[in-house]
Structure formats: C-alpha cells, structure tokens
C-alpha cells in the first residue's frame, strides 16, 4: 500500500504505545521448519469487554505494520495507516470494540522476521529465515489472540494481503471468527500479481548491496525499484492521469537527459526513497513470497469449496472498480464460492478511480459498509 498524504482529520485515538508479546511456543511452519522465541508486535485500541466478545483483529497489507491508528509520539507527522477508520463513531468504534492490529510474521516492524536474531546462532536470520506462508502468519497471530484471552473474534478485517489473512483466519480457526471483511483481495493469487512480485524481488536481489541477503546497509536501489513497481500496480491509469497527467516536475521544458522530468517520475522516486527508510529488503522478499503461495484450494487438494466446509460466518467482500491488481472478478469469485457454501455474503464493487490503493482512500463508502456490517455482527453475537 502507498504512503499517504496528510491526514484529513485529527486522530481521536491519541497516543498509542506498541506492545510486544513474546511466545515460548515452537511454531511449526508449512515449509516443514519451525520457529521459536517469536516476538509479536501489536497495538490495541478501545477496551476488551469482560466476556472478551468485542475484539476485532485488523490485518495490514504487504508493507503495513501494527500501527493502525493514533500516534506514537505527539510529534509524529502522520498517524497510523488506517487512522480514519478508528475512533468513536467510526467503523472500528473504540467505544464499542477492542481493536487489535499486529505486525505479521516475516515483517520488519517489531514481529519476528528475517532481520531478527536466530536464537540458534545468535546472528540475524537473514536468508536463513524459513519461507513462510499466509497460514503461518495466521498461526503466529493465533498465539497472540490466545494470549489476550480472546476465544472468538467479532471480525477479522483486512485489505489486500490483509484480506488474505482475514480469510485464512476463518479457514484455519472457524470457531474463533464471527465474521470476515475482505477488501481488494483474492483467494487465489493471480499470475499477474505473482509476476510483479517476481520482478520486485529480482530488482532487490540484482542490487549488489543485497549480497545474498547479508547486507549491512539496505540495497536501496533494488528495494526502491521494487517499491516503485509495486506502487504502479496500486494506482490506476485514471488516478495517474488525474494526479500527474504529463505535468513536468520543475523545469519549463524537457531536460533532454534521463533525470526526473515528469511529475510521475519524481513521485515514484519519492515513494521508493521513503520506502527504503522504513522497510527491510529481506522482509519484502519473504512477504511477497507468502502472498504468491496463497491459494486457499491448496488446503483442500485443489477443492475450492471443501476448504470452506467449516466456515459458516458472514463475509463482507469488497473490490474496487479500477483495481487491476485484484480486479473485481476476484471478489466476485470469492463471493460466489461463499454463497455456494451457504454463507451470508455481501459483495460490493465500489466505484473508484484510485486502483488497488482505494482500500485506503475510499474511506467514506468503505466506512459506511464496514460500520453497518460490524454493527449487525455485534448485535447478533
């Protein structure tokens, strides 16, 4: 997902402090290996009811983190990544719900990932970190949810990779999930998305600074290229046309060299450079790989329907009209599978020019859908 510009309103969440949960459990992974001494970074908002029945787990996307809303410090320039959805009267209403967001396994924002110390060697894992899957990420989060004393989540919500995690939660622990909101996502990652992930990883690994993953300083060029490429897939032709057109960055005329003439070039450069400051190249490799491997039917010998056998909860599935990374038919396909499975499903393809990033930008429509959906789940539980 993209860097966002200035927040529209001041965050009602205020100052939040990230927490760490350290697990002694040994986590068995899909690849056959296991991880121990896991740390999970998370943030919470609102208050958990005595019956622990008001918890909502929000899942972040590829490059997100546990910092969903509010600020860590009053001088922080920007609030959390989905700040406008959290607070009194908002979809994740802090007066009603207890909201949890945690950094995924393999990440680089506090949860155990390739940059963490391997307890067996005392050195960072780097490329010795096992290849993980979306299911593994959910297994790790389950440790956190158990630790918090929550037996059933009112909802698991996420966009893009977050939507995969939310759906996987319902598949892995159906008895623990009362509803799912899956936004701009898919239950089988399409070839095109795999292709973009591949090129992004190739760019990172082709950067000599990457050094087989053993860099002491980030492979800036490679990671920035991966980010720029990814960023293009999060926008749309319409949004680029409206935002940049053929506008030049500063000069009156073309420079007749290969520096950044166009505003769109300068924007991508900026996105790439900012990203290198906050994200780890090896984490990018591991998380994109986990996304590539996501196909729910793998968990039931290729049977799309069998995998949802035990999943009976309501789903809200949302796509965006201009999203070409996960086009409408992915949401529709997911809705169709769930309808046939007998679930209560709502599917809405929100009209938007923002492309894949619309899940962060179409706050108003999304907010009304999520508020209504969560409210009904809350009343029924």
């Amino acid at each position: 997902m993209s860097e966002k510009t200035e927040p529209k309103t001041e965050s009602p969440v205020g100052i939040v402090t990230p927490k760490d949960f350290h697990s002694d459990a040994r986590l068995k992974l899909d690849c056959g290996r296991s991880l121990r001494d896991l740390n999970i970074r998370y943030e919470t908002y609102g208050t958990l009811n005595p019956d622990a029945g008001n918890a909502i787990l929000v899942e972040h996307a590829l490059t997100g983190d546990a910092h969903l809303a509010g600020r860590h410090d009053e001088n922080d320039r920007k609030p959390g990544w989905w700040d406008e959805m959290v607070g009194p009267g908002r979809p994740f209403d802090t007066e009603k719900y207890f909201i949890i967001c945690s950094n995924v396994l393999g990440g680089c924002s506090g949860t155990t990932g390739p940059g963490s110390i391997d307890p067996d060697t005392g050195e960072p894992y780097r490329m010795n970190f096992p290849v993980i899957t979306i299911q593994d990420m959910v297994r790790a989060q389950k440790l956190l949810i158990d630790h918090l004393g929550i037996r059933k989540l009112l909802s698991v919500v996420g966009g893009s990779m977050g939507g995969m995690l939310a759906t996987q939660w319902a598949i892995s622990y159906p008895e623990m999930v009362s509803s799912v909101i899956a936004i701009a996502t898919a239950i089988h990652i399409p070839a095109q998305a795999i292709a973009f992930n591949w090129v992004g990883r190739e760019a990172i690994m082709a950067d000599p600074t990457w050094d087989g993953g053993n860099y002491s300083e980030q492979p800036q060029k490679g990671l920035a290229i991966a980010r720029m490429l990814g960023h293009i897939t999060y926008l749309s032709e319409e949004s680029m046309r409206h935002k940049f057109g053929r506008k030049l960055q500063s000069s009156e005329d073309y420079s007749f060299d290969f520096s950044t003439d166009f505003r769109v070039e300068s924007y991508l450069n900026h996105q790439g450079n900012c990203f290198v400051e906050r994200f780890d190249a090896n984490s990018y490799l591991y998380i994109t790989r986990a996304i590539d491997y996501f196909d729910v039917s793998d968990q039931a010998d290729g049977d799309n329907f069998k995998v949802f056998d035990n999943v009976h909860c309501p789903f809200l599935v949302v796509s965006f009209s201009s999203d070409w990374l996960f086009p409408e038919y992915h949401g529709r396909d997911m809705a169709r599978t769930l309808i046939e499975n007998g679930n209560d499903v709502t599917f809405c393809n929100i009209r938007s020019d923002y492309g894949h990033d619309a899940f962060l930008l179409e706050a108003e429509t999304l907010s009304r859908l999520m508020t209504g959906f969560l409210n009904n789940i809350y009343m029924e539980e």
Partner: protein
Amino acid sequence: MRNTIHVNDHRLISRSDLAVIADMIPHGAKILDLGCGSGRLLKALKMLKGAKIMGVELDQGKIIECVRRGVPVIQSNLDGALPEFTDNSYDYVILSRTLQAVMHPDLLLAEMLRIGNKGIISLMNFAHFDARLQMMGGNMPVTRSLPVKWYETANIHPGTLSDFRLLCRDKNIRIVREIPLAQPGDTLRFLAPLWPNLFASNCIFVVSK
C-alpha cells in the same frame, strides 16, 4: 396461529404488494430478491418468517442501506446472467417491480427459474383502466401506480398483465398463482379480482418451470 403478515398491518412493510409477497412465503424458506433495493422486504422476511435471505442490487447507495439493515446482498447487474447463484439453490426468487426495468425480461425470467424453484413477480399493469384512459388521450400514462413520466421511468418495457401471461406461455413457464392488486384511488378497484388486466394496477404472479 398462522404466521402471516396482513396487508399494511406491520410497519416493516408499507407497500401492499410486498405485504402480499411476505404473506405467501413459508417459514424458514430460502429467498433471493433480485433488485432488492434497500432490503426492506428481505429484512421483514428474515424477522417475520425466519427466512434465509439474499439480495441482488446494482445501486451502491442501496447496498450500503442493505448492509446497515443486516441484509446480505450481491452487487450485480440484472441485465446479465447471475453466475454467483447455482441451479435450484433457492426456494423462491423474487422480482418485485423489477422485471419491466431490465434489458431482457425474458432472459431474466429464465435465470430466475434456473436459480429458484418458484418465482414471485410483482408487475405494474400498463393496461390498467386509468392508464388506458390516458393512452386514449394520446399520452403514456402517469397514474398513482405509475407516477413517473415516460422519459424518467425505470420501466423500459411497459407490459401488461396479459402480455406477461403470453410471455409465460411462449417460454413454457407455469403461472401457479395470480393475485391482482388495486390500491386506494384506482378506478373501480373492487373489480380487480374479476378483470385484472383492466382493473388491477399491479399483480403478483407465482411462477414455476
């Protein structure tokens, strides 16, 4: 005690044709409403009949209303096929004042009976007495039940009750029940049951394959 809703006797349903539809749905039935609008009928069927409900609607604003009501809904255009729904997967499929507003009413009717065992269709009657009177004057009707001018109406296929019967005959669709309805203010409304195509301003048909 019969579990029924009587016309206008519940605040959940204010339109008389919807109350009649609700009245004929058996308890616990599986219902799909094509063109469900903001989900009022489905919500009523869920609350009063314990129905397992699902709606289809195109308009984003109405979908938000459905979600607010707790009515599951799929955004879809009724001018095309509905591959989201498998054959014979619903007890009843409802088309309430929708059939005349789609591009291909005949195809939608077929789609409806592919998905549902029975179809319930609420239809406006363009051959109603009041409408005919206006047509005699040379203009498309604007009446109590057809309140919108020809260039504003969503009903792009203005058909009559008789036309609908012919369509069903041509497509081998069985009309199981026919409930002519008239509303207060319609001319000679007491004659609606006797001569529906002339005196019923709308009508509910129950159809099956």
